[in-house]
């Protein structure tokens, strides 16, 4: 039978944790159909029984933007045509980032019942959470299209910069999610801490405001990793230059973050099952 998770494993006497972690990654990648199907399932399941289904993801965000956009434009005394697209992209990207991190908190604890029934690659469980949030993020595309038409934003090749930007953001979120998922499985107090930090982060990060529009010192923005992630998606769409500092920061975080996450994963992978 060609299906099924066939084990042909031989573990050394003192198991090499790095090798085990690597085979976990390989297996998770081989079973991409598994976590992607589960992620789709999650999205459909969340809106089970509702008439509009996953369209609610789009609608709630649209209502938020349409409601708060004009208000903040007035509060900040800004030009609507300039502010609203900026804010819409900021809010949607921020939701993607925080959604992924918040849900990563429960990645392992929420699948504990399955982890204790069958052998599952640990990374596949995380990929499911990240992919689920990617799907939710893509539900914002209609909003972007409406904004493009309504505010007559320029369409051109610069939009293609969105692709590497999105990839860098997703890869950054994956290592962040992995660290968060492992730590939250081990220490249950971390989940509420992360949620409250991200709530404050919404105001500290240039989601609704901009250092140019509000004359905030640039270094405050430059220090904020989330600002870098948001800019990677927002700047190409609005036709802005990505600040070199933010780009360097996000690439630097990508490397350092993955090294840290890999070290943590190698160290803890085997124990996750006992914590959940």
């Amino acid at each position, binding site marked *: *039978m060609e*299906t*099924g*998770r*066939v*084990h*042909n*494993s*031989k*573990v*050394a*006497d*003192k*198991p090499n944790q790095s090798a*085990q972690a690597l085979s976990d990654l390989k297996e998770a990648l081989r*079973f991409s*159909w*598994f976590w992607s*199907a*589960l992620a789709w*399932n999650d999205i459909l*399941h969340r809106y*089970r029984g509702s008439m509009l289904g996953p369209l609610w993801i789009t609608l709630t965000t649209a209502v938020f933007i349409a409601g708060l956009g004009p208000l903040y434009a007035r509060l900040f005394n800004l030009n609507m045509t300039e502010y609203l697209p900026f804010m819409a992209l900021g809010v949607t990207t921020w939701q993607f980032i925080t959604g992924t991190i918040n849900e990563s908190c429960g990645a392992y604890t929420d699948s504990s*019942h*399955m*982890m*204790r*029934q*069958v*052998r*599952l690659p640990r990374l596949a469980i995380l990929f499911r959470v990240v992919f689920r949030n990617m799907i939710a993020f893509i539900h914002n595309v209609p909003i972007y299209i409406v904004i493009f038409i309504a505010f007559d934003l320029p369409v051109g090749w610069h939009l293609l910069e969105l692709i590497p930007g999105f990839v860098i953001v997703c890869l950054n979120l994956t290592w962040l999610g992995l660290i968060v998922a492992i730590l939250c499985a*081990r*220490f249950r107090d971390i989940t509420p801490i992360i949620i409250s930090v991200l709530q404050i982060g919404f105001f500290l990060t240039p989601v609704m405001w901009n250092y140019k529009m509000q004359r905030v010192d640039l270094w405050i923005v430059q220090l904020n990793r989330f600002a870098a992630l948001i800019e990677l998606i927002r700047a190409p769409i609005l036709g802005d230059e990505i600040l070199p500092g933010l780009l360097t920061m996000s690439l630097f975080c990508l490397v350092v973050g993955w090294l840290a996450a890999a070290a943590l994963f190698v160290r803890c992978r*085997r124990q996750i*099952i*006992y914590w959940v």
Partner: protein
Amino acid sequence: MRSARSAPTVRALEDISLNIAPGDRLGLIGANGAGKSTLLRVMAGIYEPDTGSVAVSGMIMPLLELGLGFDGDLTGWENIRLRGMYLGIKPTYFERFAPDIAAFSELGEYLDLPVRTYSSGMMMRLSLGIATALSPDILLMDEWMMAGDAAFMQKAHDRLAGFVEKTNILVLASHSEPIIREWCNKALLLNAGHVMAFGPVDEVLGVYKELFEGTE
């Protein structure tokens, strides 16, 4: 605040060394907490040993807890697909088994209803139907599969028997002597995480009785 380091370390299994060959039907016996379920999970690759190695070749099907892995809000059909995915089988491939599972579980139109509306008997039928639809090389079972309401059990028994026959290796954890005698040709007696006896069923059950009577 509770310090994480103060948690006691439990050594669930120690010094286990055994080789299970095709054709073996191994019964794991021992008192509650002896390590039967833990050993099944080690074999399934769910727990990894601190030291030592587990070498497995073939597709493993662990059937450890009943009802777990069902999502109450999903319908029977959706749960069939979901359970298959967790076992490593693509939904398209699993569709082929779906009619067989539906026929065996006798759930009919209930399969279109959310599983939370099922009785425990219905859930068990569905669980058993899914589990036995596949033909794994190695089957790891906790004894729940052998217990159930009498009406369905006869049918379940026949299906299980055919199913067990198809697999190369069966490992069954139970503390019921009749179940071990019926299904197994070898037995392993565990006590506090140690192997007390391993060999033919009669021999091992003899040791088990001695041990049991000794503590009484």
